């Protein structure tokens, strides 16, 4: 009879029922949700708060109507207003602040003042500055008496925004974003690192616990050591997956609830409509590059680009690779952790063995970070093939596009190595768990590897 399921069940249940597990599982998503929600919350709060700003110009009226209203601020041009009087009453009149423009503006840059009770948001300041700068620039140019100035200006004005387009063998083009690829690479690599390390270490602790408790002898008289080891490794992997799934669901759920509570529904639908509209127009651009572009709000264009790029990521490949590398990478490291756990008498003794495991993982993480700067570098190439580092580095490379042969080779190497490591770990484990009181060295472990029977 196969007893691995019985072992998996115990390993799983005892861990899932622990208070620390339950607390971590509930608290972490709250934290994640906060990290996701807070920045958007701050950003949106800015737009929520609609500001009326009084524009007062001293003696002249050259800037009348120059500063356009934005979503978050309205500029009301007041003529013949006493500035000193207004300073006292602007709040009662419903203004957020006064923008005072003195006549010296053309020559003295800081002749403009924004008077308000609170520190004004950077967005509004930016908007005012650019508007005024452009107007002053235009007026200065006018002083040169150039003919057809307006037309020249229209021709001269250019906006540059690099579009990155990936082209594949069949000639199909896809708009991509390095930003999104980097984010994905970072998340993929880091998640892999966390999962492998946290749950691999749990395997080690479990093995040490059984060894010091001498429970292992009772179990080994019922099941084979390799079965116990695999049962433990799989059980803990399931704990990890459970926690991970709960985190994802809770984080999305909490974020969703907060979002819908804070933001108006109409905003969201409007946004989606705009995006889909823009996605369509972007598609057209891609087909006929160089033609005149339809007028789009620049912020919206940026957002659309990201959205487009996110949709264009090879999601299926990413998810498949993640699952593949997580399972094999976890099994690989967990079996090493199990072997180490079996070789020592208590946790403090693990130090000397931990270092050689930690080095490849840390190295992989560092190379993965470098990969984001240069995904084609030889370093990234080799580290994405070497099995101990490939789960992390390859995950970081995939969003940038990896030749199929490299991916397949990396996966084959990973599979072979993982089987070899599990087999070796089982041998060390079998001998190690019954050894007490002896300080284990690498040499000793090598000897255990070759024990028969």
């Amino acid at each position, binding site marked *: 009879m196969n*007893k691995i399921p019985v072992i998996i069940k115990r390993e799983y249940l005892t861990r899932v029922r622990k208070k620390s597990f339950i607390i971590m599982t509930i608290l972490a998503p709250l934290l994640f949700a906060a990290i996701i929600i807070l920045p958007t919350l701050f950003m949106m709060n800015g737009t929520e708060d609609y500001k009326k700003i009084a524009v007062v110009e001293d003696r002249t009226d050259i800037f009348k109507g120059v500063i356009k209203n934005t979503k978050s601020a309205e500029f009301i041009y007041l003529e013949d207003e006493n500035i000193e009087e207004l300073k006292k009453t602007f709040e009662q009149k419903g203004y957020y602040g006064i923008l005072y423009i003195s006549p010296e503006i053309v020559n003295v840059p800081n002749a403009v003042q924004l008077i308000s009770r609170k520190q004004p948001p950077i967005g509004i300041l930016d908007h005012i500055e650019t508007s005024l700068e452009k107007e002053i620039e235009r007026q200065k140019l006018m002083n040169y008496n150039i003919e057809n100035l307006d037309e020249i200006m229209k021709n001269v004005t250019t906006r540059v925004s690099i579009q990155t387009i990936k082209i594949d063998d069949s000639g199909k083009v896809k708009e991509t974003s390095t930003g999104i690829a980097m984010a994905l690479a970072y998340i993929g690599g880091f998640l892999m690192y966390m999962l492998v390390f946290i749950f691999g270490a749990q395997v080690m602790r479990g093995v040490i616990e059984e060894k010091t*408790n001498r*429970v292992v*002898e009772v179990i080994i*008289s019922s099941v084979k050591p390799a079965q116990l080891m695999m049962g433990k490794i799989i059980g803990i992997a399931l704990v990890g997956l459970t926690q991970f799934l709960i985190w994802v669901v809770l984080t999305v759920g909490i974020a969703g609830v907060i979002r819908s509570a804070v933001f108006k529904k109409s905003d969201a639908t409007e946004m989606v409509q705009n995006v889909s509209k823009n996605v369509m127009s972007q598609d057209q651009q891609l087909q006929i590059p160089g033609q005149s572009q339809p007028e789009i709000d620049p912020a919206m264009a940026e957002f659309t680009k990201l959205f487009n790029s996110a949709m264009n990521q090879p999601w299926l490949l990413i998810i498949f690779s993640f699952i593949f590398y997580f399972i094999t990478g976890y099994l690989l490291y967990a079996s090493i952790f199990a072997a180490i756990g079996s070789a020592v008498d208590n946790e403090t003794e693990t130090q000397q063995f931990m270092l050689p495991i930690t080095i490849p993982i840390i190295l992989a993480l560092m190379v993965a970070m470098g990969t984001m700067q240069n995904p084609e570098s030889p370093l990234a190439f080799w580290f994405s093939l070497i099995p101990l580092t490939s789960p992390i580095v390859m995950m970081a490379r995939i969003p940038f596009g990896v030749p199929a042969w490299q991916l397949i080779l990396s996966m084959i190497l990973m599979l072979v190595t993982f089987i070899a490591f599990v087999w070796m770990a089982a041998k060390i484990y079998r001998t190690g768990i*019954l050894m007490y009181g002896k300080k284990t060295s690498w040499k000793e472990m090598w*000897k255990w590897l070759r024990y028969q*029977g």
Partner: protein
Amino acid sequence: MELFEAKDVTKSFGSVVALDKVSISVPKQSIYGLLGPNGAGKTTLIRIINQITGPDSGELFLNGRKLKPDDVASIGYLPEERGLYKKMKVGEQALYFAQLKGLSHAEAMKRLKYWFKKLDITDWWGKKVEELSKGMQQKVQFAITVLHEPDLLIFDEPFTGFDPVNANIIKNEILFLRERGATIIFSTHNMGSVEELCDNITLINKSKTILEGKVGEIRRQWAGNEYDIVFEGNTEFNENGYFKIMNRQTENNKTSVRIKTLSEMNTNEILLAAVKAGKVISFNPALPSMNEIFIRVVEAQN
């Protein structure tokens, strides 16, 4: 008929020889004692029987067939260092081990209830192991070991850590298990329990068998030339040229004398002398305790 046999089992760890051609044969439904000083190799032999480790050479037979990996189901093992998960509840843990031995959940539950009641540990079912005293933990472990009703039971030092009352309970359970048909191998340092329980023993010292056989026969073999004579009343019994009085005590209107013969002589001569001295109730060769034999054999070899 032999339930279990080990033939010429040898095992070494690196350059250290733990067992050197050790053989035991355990008759069905008997209690077999595995004796020996610390570090003699008893636990290694027990681990080999349990297939925790394999022998370097030698063969093992269960019921006349070679021992197979599947046979663990028909062996119950109580290790010397008791092993339980400290943070797990007693009942849950017992169920887990029972299921590892191949019992179904329902069957395991039924038998656990029976044994927990028998050993008077039902109240601890919902408690965590770390809340129990050492003796209590051992009772739990004992129940777990015998639960799947194996043909062969192996107890490594079953009495250590028990108070006399509980040690007696365990002793009676071991006898009860034999009556029910089980065969038991146990290792111990408690020689009193060997005399009370064991049918056969093997004494291992420095990885070799140095003594084996039926307990009664061994004791008779080692009896030497000492005899116990019991007289009625307070009887004077004096030494003569043939024997020496080793020990004499009067209790409950009976006098027990242990004598040692000085030369090879007919027991009749002693009896004659005894009959002259008073009314003889019994005359027996003095059997040495297993404790004495143990010490003498081991020291002789060292």
